[in-house]
């Protein structure tokens, strides 16, 4: 367990993040129509290439770990598959046939398909057509009543989970004849022609679903909603209600992204700017600990100094004395007493703000992306990566299933 690595890649939000298979490169979009590929040299990231083919904002990027291809999708309703050549990355247009923005994209585990969610109330499942040498898509339309906000693939390469703005999380079959072999029966179902609905789940208070994730085995589905809830579903089999459907109502602001690190642990992150670990089983789930707890006072010293406005270091001049600062704080920020210099959250779920106006967490704005970064030899996730609207890319260590975060946080503590 060590202190998180923080990299400031942009001053604005990062809208798509994807690491290369060997983690030496990262593709991000700085909230515009370009995708930038950074390469790691020592401790810093260096801009290597810019992929400029889209006309509008890029909403998501996915990098296939084995075949080393990148797919980007954008609000211009297009997706491109980029293949590396000697002269750089070469784009190939995908025939998505959607009439609204594409919102999310993900390669399937076998990397022979990818799925694109869109505002056109459709999911385009794309596969390569050898005859015509282009990517074609098949649409899942049926029960979707609103924008698809997130997708995730089941490890069997056939099932697809989607979270939508109609406050539902769905599980579909994305079986494509000629590409997929007949899948083994799973808890989600045994006969799976394209478009079969294997599950449909709501959030407890009707919040739209921001993100969905399958557990490593694919037997458990978790999703986060805008009603500050985390829900975990254990299906029992086709046609019967799930064995367990657990919803946790959180005191904090809603989560935007989540990922499983093992069958019994998941990490969610969102508007409260810190990744939070949940643990449990089919008997029940609960909030476990935060990877970046501002009340334990550790992470502030980790923020990079290169960016943003920092506290003015007491320069010369009589206007810098304590009393003056006190009144200036009261005037500009409404801070009335000096006693709350490291203000603990005054009520449950509020982000703590330091005297300099910066958050006490590593991320200074909502976290929009979280994904596993590194696995140990037994297949457990040891590091996760997050990115957010503050333009920071952070790599966190996760103690395998145990709340052993304290020593790590103490290590980063500046006394």
């Amino acid at each position, binding site marked *: 367990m060590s202190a998180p690595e923080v990299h400031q890649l942009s001053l604005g939000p990062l809208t798509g993040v994807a690491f290369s298979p060997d983690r030496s490169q990262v593709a991000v979009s700085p909230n515009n129509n370009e995708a930038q590929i950074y390469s790691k040299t020592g401790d810093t990231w260096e801009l290597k290439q810019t992929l400029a083919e889209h006309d509008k904002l890029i909403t998501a990027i996915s990098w296939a770990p084995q075949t080393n291809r990148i797919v980007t999708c954008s609000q211009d309703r297009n997706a491109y598959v980029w293949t590396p050549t000697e002269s750089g990355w070469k784009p190939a247009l995908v025939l998505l046939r959607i009439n609204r923005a594409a919102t999310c994209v993900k390669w399937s585990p076998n990397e022979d398909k990818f799925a694109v969610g869109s505002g056109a109330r459709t999911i385009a499942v794309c596969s390569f057509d050898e005859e015509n040498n282009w990517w074609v898509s098949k649409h899942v339309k049926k029960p979707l009543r609103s924008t698809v906000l997130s997708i995730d693939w089941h490890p069997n390469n056939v099932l697809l989970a989607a979270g939508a703005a109609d406050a539902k999380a769905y599980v579909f079959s994305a079986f494509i004849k000629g590409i997929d072999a007949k899948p083994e029966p799973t808890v989600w179902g045994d006969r799976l022609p394209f478009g079969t609905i294997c599950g449909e789940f709501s959030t*407890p*208070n*009707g*919040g*739209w679903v921001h993100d969905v994730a399958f557990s490593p085995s694919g037997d458990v589905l978790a999703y986060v*909603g*805008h*009603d*500050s*809830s985390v829900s975990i579903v254990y299906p029992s089999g086709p*046609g019967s209600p799930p064995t367990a459907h657990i919803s946790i*109502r*959180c*005191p*904090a*602001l*809603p989560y935007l992204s989540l990922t499983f690190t093992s069958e019994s642990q998941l990490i969610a992150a969102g508007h409260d700017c810190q990744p939070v670990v949940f643990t449990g089983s089919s008997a029940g789930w609960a909030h476990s600990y935060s990877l970046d707890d501002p009340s334990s006072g550790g992470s502030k010293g980790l923020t990079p100094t290169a960016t943003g406005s920092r506290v003015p270091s007491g320069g010369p001049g009589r206007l810098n004395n304590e009393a003056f600062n006190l009144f200036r704080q009261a005037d500009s920020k409404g801070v009335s007493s000096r006693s709350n210099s490291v203000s603990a959250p*005054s*009520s*449950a*779920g*509020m982000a703590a703000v330091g005297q300099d106006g910066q958050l006490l967490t590593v991320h200074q704005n909502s976290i929009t992306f979280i994904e596993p970064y590194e696995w140990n030899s037994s297949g457990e996730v040891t590091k996760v990566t997050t990115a957010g609207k503050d333009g920071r890319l952070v790599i966190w260590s996760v103690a395998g299933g145990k709340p052993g975060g304290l020593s790590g946080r103490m290590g980063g503590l500046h006394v």
Partner: protein
Amino acid sequence: MSEYAFRKIDIDAPRGPAGALSDAKAKSGEVRGLVSKGDIAGALNLILTDPPYGDGVDEAKNLTSSAVLLILNSTRTAEIPNHLKNLDPEQQDHLMAYLYKAMGTEGHGGDVSGSVLLTWHEKLTEVAGVGCIVRVMTDRRTL
């Protein structure tokens, strides 16, 4: 398609509008009794469990809202946090929804003052967090 028949059941109104109304009447009567005996905790617990929810039960909703307001008005400020801590998360969400509803009708002949609502709102946010507010704002079904 028989396996989808359960989707047609309106889970928000298991007993229909008439049943919801008679339930609401019985409950608000009971709440009045509890409040006059000074049992605020019992009254809150009763009225915030399975409140009328969804379409077509407006009359029941209004009855329940005024019963909630009666409780809010007859509680001493110092006792509020203790009562709130004894509610489960779902009841806390419902209470927050009633607070916002009352704030919305404030000044339209409502019988509750803004300061009472704001006190309850402050204490409830301290106990249940901002997540509770987000849930009320997000939910399109009303109480």
